[in-house]
């Protein structure tokens, strides 16, 4: 009696065990839903009016391509080591793609090559690295030649083809800046021979340093008509130098990469800003990686035309969309 009961119990238990294992397997299968591919997006810094639109563009592309974005950056644009550390950690975490706006052209070569060697599709945005595109590496760059040309045309328009101009913020650390400066100079020489470039100074990521350079430039050139500040720091430094020098209020500034509408509205000496279209870069970069993940071919290099932002077009739909920072909004 007891033996038969025991036997029945064993059979039932065995069946239940098999059933339980099946249920566990089915449950784990249903829970192990394929997670969307995650793309690491590392801009030069984050939380700024220049790079938050890139975040918005990236999230928009992620929603349309079924991918996820990991977003992080150093707290300063010149924290090259911080960005290298971040890229290295991203490589180790095996994300399915990498979008990088390099803080420095040379120092990021090795980490990017390492990412490529691990098979990570990589898109460099903003300014290029000295690695030829192809394979898993693509570029979506700011058209620096066009940026320099736009600045030259604006200067020519402001000065009516005659006057003096200084170029500040030349920074060889960022590959595109040299192209930008070269294009500005050649366009001015070709289109406006009456405009003289009286000063050309190196810049940094340091506001006071760039302000000091601007002050020195203004002192050396008391009749200076315009300043083209090629970087964000030199734009702010130049505006500050002019604001503290009542005698130089007539000098107009054309800034770069500082798309803060408040600055444009507040600083009267700031005529206009030329900014890279970081939103389109973020959008395009994520779409490029998603296409690569699907096995589609992608263009090795794309150059995007920068935006000229003035007080007049600040409220235009095109500019508002380009500067839109609310990345979480669909």
């Amino acid at each position, binding site marked *: 009696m*007891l*033996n038969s009961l*025991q036997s029945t*119990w*064993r059979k039932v*238990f065995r069946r239940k065990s098999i059933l339980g294992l099946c249920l566990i397997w089915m449950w784990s299968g249903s829970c192990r839903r394929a997670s969307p591919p995650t793309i690491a997006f590392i801009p030069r*810094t*984050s*939380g700024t009016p220049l790079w938050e639109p890139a*975040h918005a563009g990236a999230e928009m592309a992620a929603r349309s391509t079924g991918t996820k974005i*990991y*977003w*992080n*950056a*150093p*707290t*300063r644009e*010149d*924290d*090259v*080591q*911080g960005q290298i550390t*971040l890229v290295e950690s991203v490589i180790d975490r095996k994300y399915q793609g990498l979008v990088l706006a390099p803080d420095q052209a040379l120092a990021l070569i090795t980490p990017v090559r390492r990412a490529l060697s691990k098979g990570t599709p990589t898109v460099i945005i903003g300014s290029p690295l000295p690695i030829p595109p192809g394979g898993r590496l693509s570029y979506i760059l700011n058209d620096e030649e066009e940026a320099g040309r736009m600045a030259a045309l604006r200067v020519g328009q402001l000065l009516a083809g005659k006057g003096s101009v200084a170029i500040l913020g030349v920074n060889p650390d960022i590959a595109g800046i040299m192209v930008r400066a070269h294009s500005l100079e050649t366009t001015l020489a070709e289109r406006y021979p009456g405009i003289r470039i009286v000063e050309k100074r190196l810049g*940094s990521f*340091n*506001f*006071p*340093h760039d*302000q*000091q350079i601007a*002050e*020195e430039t203004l*002192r050396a050139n008391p009749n200076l008509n315009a300043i083209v500040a090629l970087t964000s720091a030199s734009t702010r430094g130049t505006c*500050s130098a002019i*604001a*503290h020098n009542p005698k130089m209020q007539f000098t107009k500034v054309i800034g770069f990469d500082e798309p803060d509408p*408040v600055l444009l509205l*507040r600083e009267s000496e700031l005529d206009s800003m030329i900014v890279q279209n970081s939103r389109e870069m973020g959008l395009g970069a994520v779409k490029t990686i998603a296409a690569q993940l699907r096995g589609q071919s992608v263009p090795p290099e794309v150059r995007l035309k920068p935006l000229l932002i003035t007080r007049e077009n600040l409220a235009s739909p095109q500019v508002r969309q380009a500067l839109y920072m*609310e*990345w*979480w909004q669909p």
Partner: protein
Amino acid sequence: MSVRTTIFGLRPVLKFGLIGLLGLAAGLLFFSKPVLNRLAGLPYQDSFAAGTADEWHALGGTWELADGTMRNESDERGAKLMAGSVHWRDYAVEADIQLLGLDGDAGLLVRSSDEENGVDSYNGYYAGLRTHDNTLVLGRADHGWIENQAILLPGGIRPFHWYHLKLVAVGCEIAASATDTLRNVTIPAAMSEKDCKPNGRIGLRSYSSGGVWRNVRAYQATFADLEALRSKKPSAESADQAKVPASPSSPSTTAESSEAGDSASVSERQTLVAQEIASLRMASTAHPTLAKVRGVVVLTSPALYMQDATGGAAVMEVQAAPLKVGDEIEVTGKPEPRDFSLVLREAKVRLLWTRAPIPPLSVTAAQAATGAFDATFVELDGYLVSKEVGAGNTMILGLQKGEQSFRAIMNPGRGDVLFRKLKTNSLLRFRGICVVDSEYTQNLTPFVLLLRSPDDVAVLTGPPWWSAGHLAAIIAIALILVLAAQLLYSRVEHWRLRAVLEERERLAHEMHDTIAQSFAGIGFQLQAIRNDLQEKNSAALRQLDLASELVRHSHDEARRSIATLRPESLESIGLLPALERSARRMVDGGSVEVVASSRGGERPIPVRTTDALYKIGQEAIANAIRHAQPTSLHILLDYEKDKVRLAIEDNGIGFNAGHDSLGFGLQGMHKRAESISAALDIKSESGQGTHVEVIAPLPPRFTLKVWPAYIWQYFQERRSNAQEWERTHPYSYRR
């Protein structure tokens, strides 16, 4: 049904019951764990006032304890200090907060996880006081900031002023309130999310502005707490009062010191042209004049240091200004160039911008030792050589890299734990201000590093593993393992022998119950047949007598075999009495005198040795009784220091041991002696009796004195065995 079957039959029932109980316990543990986790550590109250903050973990910033508060004197964007458990769910956190600068914010985090260095690199909720637009800001970050609420605080938000901030998270509802403690004005803010973050740590955070936190406490919260916070009405101050001008984001002069009593006129200072710091090294020391420089604050305590693209300088202020690391400042003062350093005396400081701290320059100790990086924020590596506590409880680390030695100085407070944990010979990476001033170096090292916070120290690699202590530990562990292996081996051998002995005993019982009984029965039957036969049938009687004799002989042999197999006497009474008993049994009814004696201190003999000696002794006794016709038999067991000697001596007819006398019995005795590494010696001559002696080694007594000798002997034996193996197997692949 036997009892045994019943028990086995019930076993599955017990088994299932046990499994059920275990499952129930696991289920309870599983379901209660989140509850326990949610409650673990709550309520929480900081111990900043006691000078400890071991539970806090920094991500960016320069977090330090000072005057019972936690201070971040850095303008880093998104500096965080985290504590608590990621399992905390519904709770409130509150603290008193003071901002240290304009154009930034400072506040509290709840339900945070996945924190990293970076501006918005965490996943959780943040409520902060923002000077830029004088608001209480509330929102969510998921590696990107999503602002939900920005409520204007009447009276504005000013730096160096205490506010009380409270943040409650219950369910998917988040509420915050900010109170201006001086004006007693409170404003609430609330948000809710459909897909909310349900749990996470607490944290302190600042953005582009340093901050001071005190009285941080967290405790469980309910919807009632949430409602109480949400129902708070904004203060009824007039709209005019509420309109607070936005803080200037352009260069400000808030940190400028008073000009009163200044030897240089205000106009003189204003007309100065800013210079590079490096250029001030050429300044005249005979006629000190004012100079103006611009740069970034790299250190505020114990002294103010600034840096520009060309170098760094120490700043001796006329009046200390509330500055933070990362602030971009303009300094007007009298430069005092020294051998390797520059000091700006009687300095006036003007705050230009608040920005994130600059990254350090990576240099080597040899480069730093040149003095070229004085007053500069650098990063370098070094091996920890020493630790000491200096004046004012500062923590001083002695370091070495290459041929250069240097020191790192850390303020007391949060660094205490790190200081205790650091081990000498570790490779460390430091970020700090390189200073060559002899006031700090005391001319002991070429330079010192002044650290901003304990987070400026990173352990790259721990000390090398092959230290003297670890080697001693390895040797000790190896010895213990050898001993354990030896003991295990002995135990296994013991168990094996016991099994053999038990099997023999079983066989003896079987033989006694079957063969011996059968022989007795057969003998009885034969005797009965013989009794019934007539005397005239003499041939049959002879055959029966012969058969009876054979049966008796076989019975005797069986009894002897049983006596030989039955070893229980060995364990119970010992080797010598067992041999004596065996001998007496063999000579039972005869005239042979058996004498047994022992010498030396009796000691336990290993089972294996005892068994072998017993067999050898039995064989020797049996041989003597069977073949030597002795009148006396002496059994001697002699215990010596490291061996035991068994001697069996008889006064029988003896035999010629030199000739072909190695019968099966003697061969067995030799083999048994070899198996226990014993020496067997048989001496006999015709008419002179026989002397059988076996000397077996005994294991040493395990005392501290004999241990090393024992291990040495063990390895010697191993070595000699290996040599023997190689000698006997010259072509073996088993090297």
